[in-house]
């Protein structure tokens, strides 16, 4: 697997404020990455540094194993940060032609990419007449013009209406399905959960976690159970070595697993012990719960 981006001990200070603190991670080809973190956690600053618009204070980063200079490497990258920036007095087509010139790629892909984001029929309208959602979609089309090795999106759905958010997500999924590496910065967890395979979690410029989404917490998940005889259920669960913490809330028992156990086996075990479950669900913690747990731990 080839490395696309390596970040080593990157630090950025704005005066007394440290926006990014000793950050290291690598981006491998073919994965969909999410950079997670609350507002002001250094996501955009990190992306700004690797994209050559913010100067780093210390540390280093290299694109494609350092084989080419940053600006040459950026021609193979598609990136949108914060809000779409185009020349307002030029049409979509003229703007994209300009991007082609900068990226040194032929103009043949313009129509195809406009089609992908659904703007083909508005290609001759000036950029300033576009709605925010259309601007954002044009930005995605522009970032895809060179068929990039990696697509970097910083808060792509920020400020959009639900329909716009949905459109952008569909586009991202389409692109991800084609095998393009994606780096998605967001504070919207469900967004990341829906599309990403790997996450880097930041808080106040420090890395809390980086790795696969599903191994974010080495947990075995938990069961949600209901039964007519709650007492019998809880006492059985407490004596079972598979379970750790048992909680009871509004007639719903939540039992955290400490080792692997599938739902079928538990159901059978309960039945054999004379407990009939009226509700039995095995679940994994959502990214949101894991994220909150992680940032809370870091607080303590």
């Amino acid at each position, binding site marked *: 697997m080839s490395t696309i981006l390596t970040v080593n001990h990157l630090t950025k200070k704005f005066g007394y404020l440290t926006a990014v603190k000793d950050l290291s991670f690598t981006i491998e080809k073919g994965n969909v990455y999410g950079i997670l973190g609350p507002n002001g956690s250094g996501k955009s600053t990190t992306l700004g540094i690797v994209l*050559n618009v913010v100067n780093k204070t210390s540390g280093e980063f290299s694109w494609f194993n350092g084989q080419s200079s940053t600006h040459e490497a950026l021609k193979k990258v598609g990136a949108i940060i914060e809000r779409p920036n*185009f020349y307002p007095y030029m049409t979509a087509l003229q703007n994209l032609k300009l991007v082609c010139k900068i990226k040194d790629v032929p103009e043949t892909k313009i129509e195809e990419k406009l089609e992908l984001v659904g703007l083909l029929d508005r290609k001759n309208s000036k950029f300033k007449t576009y709605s925010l959602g259309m601007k954002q979609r044009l930005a995605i089309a522009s970032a895809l013009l060179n068929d990039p090795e990696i697509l970097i999106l910083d808060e792509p759905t920020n400020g959009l209406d639900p329909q716009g958010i949905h459109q952008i997500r569909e586009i991202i999924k389409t692109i991800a399905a084609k095998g393009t590496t994606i780096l998605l910065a967001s504070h919207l967890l469900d967004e990341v959960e829906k599309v990403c395979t790997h996450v880097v979690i930041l808080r106040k410029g420090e890395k809390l976690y980086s790795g696969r989404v599903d191994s974010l917490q080495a947990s075995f998940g938990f069961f949600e159970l209901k039964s007519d005889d709650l007492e019998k259920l809880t006492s059985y669960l407490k004596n079972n070595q598979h379970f750790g913490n048992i909680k009871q809330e509004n007639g719903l028992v939540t039992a955290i697993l400490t080792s692997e156990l599938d739902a079928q086996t538990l159901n059978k075990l309960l039945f054999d012990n004379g407990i009939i479950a009226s509700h039995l669900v095995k679940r994994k913690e959502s990214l949101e719960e894991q994220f909150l747990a992680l940032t809370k731990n870091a607080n303590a």
Partner: protein
Amino acid sequence: MIRLLHIEFIKLWNNRASKVLIISYFALLTSIALVAAIKFDIGPIKFHLADQGIFNFPYIWHFNTFITAFFKLFLAIVIVSMMSNEYSNKTIKQNLIDGLSKKEFIFSKFLTVVSFSLVSTIFVFIVSLILGLIYSDFNEISIILTDLEFLLAFFIKLTGFFSFCLFLGVLVKRSAFALGFLILWQVFEGIFRGIIRWKFFDSETTDVIMGFFPLQSMFNLIKEPFSRLGAVQSVANQMGEQLALDYYIHWYEIVIVLAWIAIFVYGSLAILKRRDL
């Protein structure tokens, strides 16, 4: 290089305001030909400006480059706004993300500046040549080709001035403020001259010192041509005055302006490199 120029061309030519300013600038350059039409014919007083010798070779090179250089203010607006628009639209950020290096960015702007100056110089050359061929009293090739260094000076003067505008655009980021700063700087040079002349030096030393300032050094490249006119000279002679002025372009004046160009271009690059966008 062609790629960078093409990028700038797309940006400028699609902007209506820039297009109008560029076209009117070149229209104004051409309009100097209209001076030829100035003709008073009031009874006994017959005055035809073209007959006064302003279109004689080689004087025409001096006269036209001096006059047309005033129109450079039009292009200055274009250049300042092309730089500051990149900031206000944040397109400079997008350009860099798309894979333009900071060096290429400044270089593409500088190339535009040089192209503007070059095209203006060629334009002035052609207009002057045509006017001269029509009105000049002397049409020998050797005379026509005399004093062509005024065109070189014109080119360097424009490049210097536009580089200054470029630098201000990068520094100030807002076109209106950058133009204001330009005017402020002109005033500053004037006040500074007044102060050192008044308190410290004699007139000659003051001129030497002021020759190192950006705007004054650019102005020094082409000196005023009026006192060189036959009519003015003869009036002066009648008054018993000898006008012995030095019209020629000196190598050190060119070097000073070239140094300023280098300072402005590298200064712009240094600012851009240091700044977080």
